[in-house]
């Protein structure tokens, strides 16, 4: 069993108005030293496969086909083997 931790974020060139609103709220809370905020999505995916290569192959395809829109988002992931229960 493998666990993939996937982060999907907007490409730097993409306007992220939610993150701008969040940053403004931080400033209202007097966290004046906050200079930038990016917002993204986080997924934990458990796969019942036998090798890390196979887990990576599937996660790559899942990100490309579903989790990220390649027009405006990028993704990165970490995959780790889960200890047998």
């Amino acid at each position, binding site marked *: 069993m493998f666990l993939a931790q996937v982060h999907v974020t907007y490409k730097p060139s*993409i*306007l992220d*108005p*939610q993150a701008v*609103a969040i940053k403004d709220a931080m400033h209202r809370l007097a966290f004046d030293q906050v200079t930038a905020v990016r917002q993204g*999505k986080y997924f934990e995916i458990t796969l019942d496969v036998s090798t890390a290569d196979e887990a990576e192959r599937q996660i790559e395809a899942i990100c490309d086909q*579903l*989790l990220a*829109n390649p*027009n*405006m988002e990028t993704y990165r992931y970490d995959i780790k083997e889960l200890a047998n229960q």
Partner: protein
Amino acid sequence: MMKFAVVSFPGSNCDEDLYYAITDDLHEAATIVPHTTTDLSGFDVVLIPGGFSYGDYLRGGAIAKFAPVMPAVKAFAQTGKPVLGICNGFQILTEAGLLPGTLQHNRQMQFICEPEPLRVENNRTMFTSAFQDQQQITLPIAHGEGNYYCDDATLAKLRENHQIAFTYQNNPNGSVSDIAGITNEAGNVLGMMPHPERAVEDIQGGTDGLLVFKSLVQAHLRTV
């Protein structure tokens, strides 16, 4: 009579508006077909309605693109017959790869529900032939994610192939190049954020939307 299919996904909410626009105002035949339909070959036009298919989970249209009906929508589009996606329908068509680009959150993070002045940029499409070229019209918009985005190369291609059908006169949401609606390269798939089905009777404040559907009738008559 022309036969319009209105594809209804879980969370679609403009399917009945479209149905009544086609039957009561255009006086053609319409059928609301479920997202589980796998054959659309008996229809003349396929309409993908607005709403919040699958709750907009992940991204607008991101789940709907894998609905059982979508291979049939793609097959239908490949025959050259018209496919029109409105609002969430536009988002679904971009996610499914039938139209280029994507719809982002509105620049100001506000859901906008207003009558919006538009310009018909290209009246030589199956969806716009009943308009005058450069005609100024008004259609309602109702979206939180209608900010059209594509990269510069895609935009250049859209312009070169005259794929920009409608633009906003006062860009309400930050769309690239004021884009409100585009076609595919072949010209038989149109996606638009404004709602023509909400402007088909005087009581709705205007009837400019009816001309989109009348254009489809004109296009159909040319083929029979």
